[in-house]
């Protein structure tokens, strides 16, 4: 064995099991014959011993305990609340959110298309204005779950493929640069290529996270307001409950999605910390991500989303309360407690002036007056009701509520004896709506 080769192998020979027995024997023979290599070996032995014994020092047990306790508290603080409470759910959420892309993108586009044509939009949504049955909700839930499960793998695959696409494209260049003997310029280029790959992966991930967030925000508001329009009685618990639950779910989903975006940014920051090559590039990436102000933008979106959801909840509770008051006033009137009924109806008019039920309040008050012989007063109340109808008809209501407005107006005109106007409303309504035929029975 030549001395050059021997010198190269000396260091590795210090490690047990690095070479086979034949090689070791050959090396031993060479060392016996060559004093220069023997000296080299001894020097390497001493260097090995010096460094392994003196390069660092053992940490005392007390210091280790202190280290452990401080680390424990920092770890507890850094672990996410959701991840600590339900780690399995947290792990599943990313997949669920990604699954929203293929499921809700077509539906969202459909809504956009329908919004362009208002008439078509109403014709479409009137089917949704009925209360969904429990079986319907069950079927809907199961279908969504099946689709989400099926799409989970697809979205995983999508993310993987898209994020590694750029890496695949640049792989030959990187491999060539890694294999070839390099000058500093090549080193810099290699670092640049690797960093570009990381950067593209991060950007793709950020975009993939942002799409479902935007869809959730846009669709959540529309979905919760259109799919479960409450009925006029307001006593049905299931649709209200489902509506609130759905709204809450979408809000949580959107919030989590935004949280995921901030996580991506945080992960990229962590990556920059642990990248061995040119960490300045990673830091530059973080700066560019910060420039987007994604975090703040999404915080704003969540605020809007929450405000919209709050408005929806407020509206639905107004509907429930106004309808409940009217029903109770009707019961008072039936029991002969006219004063109490009228007081309640007037309060209802005052507090819920923009609900369709306000027209029914006018009808009820007029009926009570007529029943007690105050014919003039009752006609005046009906006329006031017609004035309210004219005001409300300029507002937009969901289809079912619009039907109520029309039918109350017809009732008011009939009570005033203006049958032509009642028929005009019926004809106008029949042209516009297909929900309910409000023609009076023959």
């Amino acid at each position: 064995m030549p001395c050059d080769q021997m010198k190269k192998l000396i260091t590795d020979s210090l490690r047990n099991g690095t070479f086979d027995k034949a090689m070791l024997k050959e090396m031993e023979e060479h060392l016996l014959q060559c004093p220069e290599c023997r000296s080299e070996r001894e020097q390497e032995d001493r260097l090995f011993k010096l460094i392994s014994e003196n390069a660092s020092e053992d940490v005392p047990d007390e210091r280790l305990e202190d280290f452990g306790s401080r680390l424990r508290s920092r770890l507890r603080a850094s672990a996410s609340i959701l991840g600590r409470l339900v780690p399995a759910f947290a792990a599943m959420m990313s997949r669920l959110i990604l699954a929203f892309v293929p499921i809700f993108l077509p539906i969202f586009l459909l809504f956009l298309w329908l919004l362009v044509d208002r008439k078509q939009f109403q014709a479409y949504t009137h089917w949704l204005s009925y209360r969904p049955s429990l079986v319907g909700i069950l079927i809907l839930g199961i279908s969504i779950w099946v689709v989400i499960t099926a799409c989970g793998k697809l979205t995983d695959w999508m993310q993987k493929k898209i994020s590694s696409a750029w890496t695949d494209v640049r792989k030959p260049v990187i491999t060539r640069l890694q294999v070839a003997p390099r000058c500093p310029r090549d080193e810099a280029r290699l670092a640049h290529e690797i960093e570009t790959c990381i950067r593209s992966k991060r950007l793709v991930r950020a975009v993939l996270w942002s799409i479902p967030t935007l869809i959730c925000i846009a669709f959540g508001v529309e979905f919760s307001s259109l799919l479960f329009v409450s009925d006029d009685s307001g006593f049905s618990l299931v649709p209200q409950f489902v509506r609130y639950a759905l709204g809450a779910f979408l809000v949580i989903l959107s919030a989590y999605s935004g949280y995921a975006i901030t996580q991506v940014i945080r992960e990229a920051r962590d990556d920059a910390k642990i990248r061995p090559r040119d960490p300045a590039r990673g830091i530059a990436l973080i700066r560019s991500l910060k420039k987007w102000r994604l975090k703040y933008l999404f915080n704003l979106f969540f605020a809007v989303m929450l405000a919209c959801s709050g408005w929806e909840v407020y509206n639905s509770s107004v509907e429930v309360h106004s309808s409940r008051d009217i029903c109770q006033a009707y019961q008072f009137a039936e029991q002969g407690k006219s004063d109490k009924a009228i007081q309640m109806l007037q309060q209802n008019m005052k507090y819920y002036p923009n609900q369709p039920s306000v027209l029914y309040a006018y009808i009820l008050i007029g009926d009570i007056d007529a029943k007690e012989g105050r014919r003039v007063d009752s006609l005046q109340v009906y006329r006031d009701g017609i004035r309210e109808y004219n005001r409300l008809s300029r507002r937009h209501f969901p289809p079912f509520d619009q039907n109520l407005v029309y039918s109350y107006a017809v009732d008011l005109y009939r009570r005033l004896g203006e049958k032509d106007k009642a028929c005009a409303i019926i004809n106008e309504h029949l042209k516009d709506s297909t929900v309910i035929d409000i023609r009076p029975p023959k």
Partner: protein
Amino acid sequence: MALFKTDCECELTDGVLVGKTRRGSLEAYDQLVTRHRRGICRLAFGMTQNHEAADDLAQEAFILAFKRIRQLKDADRFGPWLRKILTNLCIRYASNPKHASLSDDRWDVSGGSADAAEKSLVRQSVRSAIFELEPHERATILLYYMEGLTQAEIADVLECPIGTIWSRLNSARMRLRNRLADLIEVP
């Protein structure tokens, strides 16, 4: 009973503990920390020669590893993966010009017998020589001589070709030999 439980827990492999940590168990990660903290602190001190900085970097490495534990492909290789994170953190720290100098107050020159004083001087010389190396070379030398990794494993940790490791190791070794000639040369 407590002793029995502790014994059982000690038998768990890194892979099992990583799996538990992924499922949200902080206790499992605590065991991993207890298992690796000594080696990690030692390596961090070797790289920085500063107790406080070593402590901070070791903590940072454990926290990063905890956050990104789902990205660890082979759960049984938690130790090397943790060293990879720590080494890169240390290189980043050492690359900062602010941390390029080694001040004397970091050394614990112990008094006492002549033998102890001599040992202390040897230690100072070795550490000083290692600290003068470039951060990448320092990492390579420490991983090779102190942690006992092979060149291929170091290449994996530092994410660079094995040829680069070989050349770094050789140049660092030459410099250390020159610097520590008095201590190494055989009479």
